[in-house]
């Protein structure tokens, strides 16, 4: 059979429709000139301007961006080091340990982090839940992604390149700076972008670790839809979606193989 059978095309189409139709509807209704998500009335950008005048929404957005930036930066640093160490010392168990938080149900991670913060940080350091605990929690689940991406990129490299650098007169630090780091940089960047978008989107873990008073975009959206799915929710969701999509596309442009290997 040389030709792709028609039903295969149909199945693929259905699968993509299943994935993207709900998103498409959200985007569409964010431009609908009506309070109700019912019938199409007309095109408007009103809900977007509403959004930028909503003080709560702006605070949530600022928090989200701050958390994503800090968490992805820290996770990238730690995850890169972990990836390098795993590769260098050929540790069998570490890769599994790094993946576990990635694969674990989010709710489990959320609950255990909440417990951990309440049992350790609050009594010992006198810290209440807030921005810092959300950031720490986000670092926790982002590290694994960065570690895996960095490790996969190292696995594809010819080991003798690093020995050649030493052989030609580079100290271990120079070898890292001039050879290893430039070669893993695409993977590191991809890991950073992925961490950023994962952090930006996260609801479950944030919900458990934010305590009272700290709001992020996903939390804000959730509290809004408890009343009704308003067009503002559609608008903010659309923006969030756009940002995430951009990050993922950029990440896979920079380092497609590593990103695909972990199935994001």
């Amino acid at each position, binding site marked *: 059979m040389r030709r792709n059978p028609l039903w295969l095309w149909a199945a693929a189409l259905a699968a993509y429709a299943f994935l993207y139709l709900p998103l498409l509807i959200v985007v569409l209704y964010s431009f609908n000139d009506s309070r109700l998500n019912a019938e199409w009335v007309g095109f408007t950008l009103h809900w977007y301007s509403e959004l930028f005048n909503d003080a709560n929404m702006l605070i949530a957005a600022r928090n989200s961006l701050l958390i994503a930036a800090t968490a992805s930066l820290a996770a990238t640093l730690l995850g890169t080091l972990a990836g390098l160490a795993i590769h260098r010392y050929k540790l069998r168990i570490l890769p599994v340990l790094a993946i576990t938080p990635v694969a674990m149900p989010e709710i489990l991670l959320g609950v255990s982090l909440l417990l951990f913060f309440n049992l350790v940080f609050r009594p010992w350091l006198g810290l209440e839940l807030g921005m810092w605990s959300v950031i720490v929690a986000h670092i926790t689940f982002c590290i694994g992604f960065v570690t895996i991406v960095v490790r996969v990129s190292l696995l594809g490299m010819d080991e003798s390149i690093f020995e*050649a650098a030493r052989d030609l007169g580079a100290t271990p630090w120079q070898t890292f700076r*001039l050879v290893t780091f430039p070669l893993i940089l695409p993977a590191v960047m991809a890991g950073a972008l992925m961490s950023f978008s994962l952090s930006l989107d996260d609801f479950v873990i944030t919900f458990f670790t934010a305590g009272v008073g700290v709001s992020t975009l996903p939390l804000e959206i959730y509290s809004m839809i408890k009343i009704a799915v308003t067009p503002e929710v559609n608008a903010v969701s659309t923006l969030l979606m756009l940002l995430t999509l951009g990050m993922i596309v950029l990440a896979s442009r920079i380092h497609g193989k590593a990103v695909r290997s972990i199935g994001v």
Partner: protein
Amino acid sequence: MALLELRKLTRRFGDFSAVDNVSLSIESGEFVTLLGPSGCGKTTILRMIAGFDLPDVGQILLDGSNIADIPPEKRPLHTVFQSYALFPHMTVADNVAFPLRMAHFDKAAIAAKVHEALESVYLSDRARAYPHELSGGRKQRVALARSLVNRPRLLLLDEPLAALDAKLREEMQHELIDLQREIGITFIFVTHAQDEALALSHRVAVMNRGRIEQYDEPSKIYGFPRNRFVADFIGNTNLLEVAVTEATPTHLRLAAAGLGDIVSPPREGTRAGQKGWFSVRPEQVRIGGHLDGELENHYSGKVRSFIYVGDVTTYTVELADGTAIEALLSNSAPGRARFFEVGDDVAVGWPHDAGVFLHD
């Protein structure tokens, strides 16, 4: 004093000795080859010399002093890796400049040296190319230029030609010989191809299972193999199991089962009654319809098969007792590619000064 001396080097991986009590001395300006089957420990020796691995026992002396504590980057030697190991994110010129940058040469000096080095390997026009844009042979040349540009005392080459096709390999062999002669840097070359070892080297160390079986000039290795392994590994040879019946300062008399007597050159330390092997090269064996009495050793048999490869034909002759002897006949006379047919009655023989007796 030798430039490099390996003293009783041993490297174990678990219970297995990858390198077993290896001693080797290399003079300045020499082209030395480590030759042996895959897995015999050649790479492990190079890695210890370069500083990527440490011997469990023994010493490595450079100019007479132990270099055990010197890290790879401080050793005045470079390696050409089997995979070339070019830096993929740097251009050809930046690859070649790397060792000079590490040695803190100034910009002008680096540019001049890089240019000169690329010229010497005919790659000046590819200075701005990236490694992935180059063919295997050219990557090889960049790797060579990169490791020679700051004139190391010693260059280690780990099967550098293994990945190239036959024609290119031969070309690179000539280039290597010329390059080494021109710049006078000591080369330690690793290969599992015996023809390459014989063609390139001043001296060859034949290795087997982590040990050096023989360390000698190519002609000695080929003409006077020390034991059966060397005789068999280097070129083609006829090996016959023999017992010594007479040992004098001028000759040996050997008894080969089923074949009869063989007269062979004397060998020190050989006594009557010893058992061993007799090795004679196919090109030393003459073949004819009937051989005159000048050859002390001659036997009659039938042609079993022959292989014609253009310049020479190798005949396999089966003797009365079933022993097969290979004889090589040059095809230099045009139109006379074949002298004998399968099944012809022929005689094979060799003079008393051909072949060697091997103890083991």
